[in-house]
């Protein structure tokens, strides 16, 4: 029976020429149950179709269409309708099938839309508690992991999230497999937000589907959903947070580097700072002079630096002083003015002794230009009200080491990473609260 022939490239050759090839057309047929029109979009691929009028399940795997299950129910409305088209992830998809699925408790229900594009095949668009993901089947053999908590596929590490049985609760449209209500599968979900790897087992087949989280608004826009989108609750297993663990880790690493740099700068400063007194004086101010302004003799700031002005009253006891100080630059007439209160109170009560304040106080003026300066000091004090003179001393130090700037810098640096870290932890806690493996995350 071997009959090898050399095929000549001639008219005898039954090669259909492009002009002979029929355009691909979706097909319609009459439902064998209710005679309503049933349309098949994925012709040649779909093997089950559900009549949109009577919900009968029809076997269309071959030409003599056969009813698998007669029904006389109206089709249930769904958010996306069979026949809707929309662009997701840059490709146009047509909704050709819908399944409502539930877990075994039948508490959780979710929607699975079968999407079709004759060039790109199929995708599954899944809506669960307001969260949307699009899935593509992987043509890769996935190593069965048993109870492994992590699995690596295409250089992506996925963490086991949930394992459970699912049930098909309702179907409409057309499917490329023998879909049936009540069909059970065992699904294990692994996550690497925004991705999710769902490994499904039924009878003798293991399939892996790779899902990606979608923005609900993008889905609504793509399919021109007019009604309300399902209300979003909780955090979906593969929902990306504002921050990923890697981002938070990186953020903290950056912060620590910034800490190190700030510390280095502070240390360099520590060793280079002059930290020298440039002025010191003291006064005994009688009550009758209380309204006179004290003008100091000029002193020199030899180079641009900060200036620490310390006012003190050595005999201050349970009393207060308020200095109104004007720092006057003799060279350019610039002034800086500030109030410097000195308060010192102490005593004892049932809890023991207490004290508040001190008999001196500091004001640090940052970055003053070099030049000659004078202080103008107005005073007010508790002592004057008691008709007592005021003891006042003022010391001025230049180029002092400023620890508060350093501390403040560290504090500022901490704000954002702390915020991001807390946001991340709270989000992950919500995510994993739905997992079978919650302990895993917190251990």
């Amino acid at each position, binding site marked *: 029976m071997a009959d090898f022939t050399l095929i000549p490239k001639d008219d005898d050759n*039954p090669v259909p020429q492009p002009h002979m*090839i029929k*355009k691909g057309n979706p097909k319609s047929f009459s439902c064998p149950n209710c005679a309503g029109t049933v349309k098949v979009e994925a012709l040649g*691929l779909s093997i089950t179709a559900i009549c949109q009028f009577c919900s009968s399940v029809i076997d269309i795997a*071959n030409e003599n269409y056969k009813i698998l299950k007669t029904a006389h129910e109206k089709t249930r409305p769904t958010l996306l309708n069979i026949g809707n088209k929309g662009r997701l992830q840059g490709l146009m998809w047509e909704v050709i099938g819908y399944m409502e699925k539930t877990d075994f408790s039948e508490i959780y229900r979710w929607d699975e839309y079968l999407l079709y594009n004759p*060039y*790109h095949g199929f995708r599954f668009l899944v809506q669960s508690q307001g969260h949307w993901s699009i899935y593509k089947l992987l043509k890769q053999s996935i190593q069965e992991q048993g109870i492994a908590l992590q699995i690596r596929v295409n250089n992506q590490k996925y963490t086991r999230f949930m394992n459970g049985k699912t049930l098909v609760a309702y179907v409409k449209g057309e499917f490329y497999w023998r879909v049936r209500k009540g069909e059970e599968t065992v699904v294990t979900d692994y996550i690497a937000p925004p991705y999710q790897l769902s490994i499904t087992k039924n009878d003798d087949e293991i399939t892996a589907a790779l899902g990606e989280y979608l923005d609900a608004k993008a889905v609504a826009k793509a399919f021109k959903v007019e009604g309300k989108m399902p209300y979003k609750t909780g955090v979906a297993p593969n929902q990306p947070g504002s921050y990923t663990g890697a981002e938070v880790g990186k953020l903290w690493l950056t912060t620590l580097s910034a800490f190190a740099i700030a510390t280095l700068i502070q240390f360099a400063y520590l060793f280079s700072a002059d930290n020298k007194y440039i002025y010191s004086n003291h006064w005994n101010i009688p009550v009758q002079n209380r309204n006179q302004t004290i003008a100091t003799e000029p002193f020199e700031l030899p180079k641009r630096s900060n200036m620490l002005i310390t006012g003190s009253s050595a005999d201050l006891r349970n009393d207060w002083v308020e200095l109104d100080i004007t720092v006057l630059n003799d060279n350019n007439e610039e002034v800086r003015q500030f109030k410097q209160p000195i308060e010192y109170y102490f005593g004892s009560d049932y809890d023991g002794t207490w004290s508040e304040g001190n008999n001196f106080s500091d004001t640090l003026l940052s970055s003053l230009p070099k030049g000659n300066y004078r202080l103008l000091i107005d005073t007010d004090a508790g002592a004057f009200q008691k008709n007592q003179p005021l003891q006042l001393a003022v010391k001025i130090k230049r180029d002092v080491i400023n620890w508060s700037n350093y501390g403040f810098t560290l504090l500022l640096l901490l704000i954002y990473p702390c915020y991001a870290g807390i946001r991340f932890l709270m989000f992950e806690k919500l995510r994993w609260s739905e997992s079978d493996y919650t302990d895993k995350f917190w251990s």
Partner: protein
Amino acid sequence: MIVRRDVDVEAIGKMATLPEDMSPLMIGSQGVYQGIRFHLIGRMKIGWKDGTWNEWYMTMENGTNGWVAEAQGFYAVNFEYKQALIAETEKAVKALGKPLLIDTSDNTPMYLPESKVNKKALGSYIFLDRQKFKVVDLKETVCRGSEGELPYAAPTGRRTLSVDLLGHKGEFAAIEIDHVTTRIYVGRYVDWPDLHWQQVRSLENW
């Protein structure tokens, strides 16, 4: 090129014998695989109890011939693997089972008996072309029609045992056992854009 052509004789001249589909491919479609242009020159429509798929025969511009399998929205480019099998693989292939005897008169088999398919082989691993493949599907198939040029006779009704294998990086392999020959194909799954298709069939509404 030597091509076996005792195809469905009655079908010559009336191409509509193939079950209709929405495939964007047709004889004359061109693509590029690993930098080499290829042309589709023939097709087999394979049926099994749960549907049909297309096996497109193609010729590449470097002289090799191969196949583009188009099933359930997936494409796999593959080539017949003609090297000797290692003993272990040979044994595993033999253990897969045998198809029923060829019966060309049966043109529209609905459900094919699977008595001779070794379902136990599912999930087992077979080494081919220095790669590890998992047996993911074994099924009895029937040729539902063919067109164009094919490397062997594929009359309507020809029965084979068809075994799909999958590597863990998307490698594709298939073992096709008919009543006389066992053919092995090795290749890989590709996405539609990967093959840079031209001369594709026009599709209503797409």
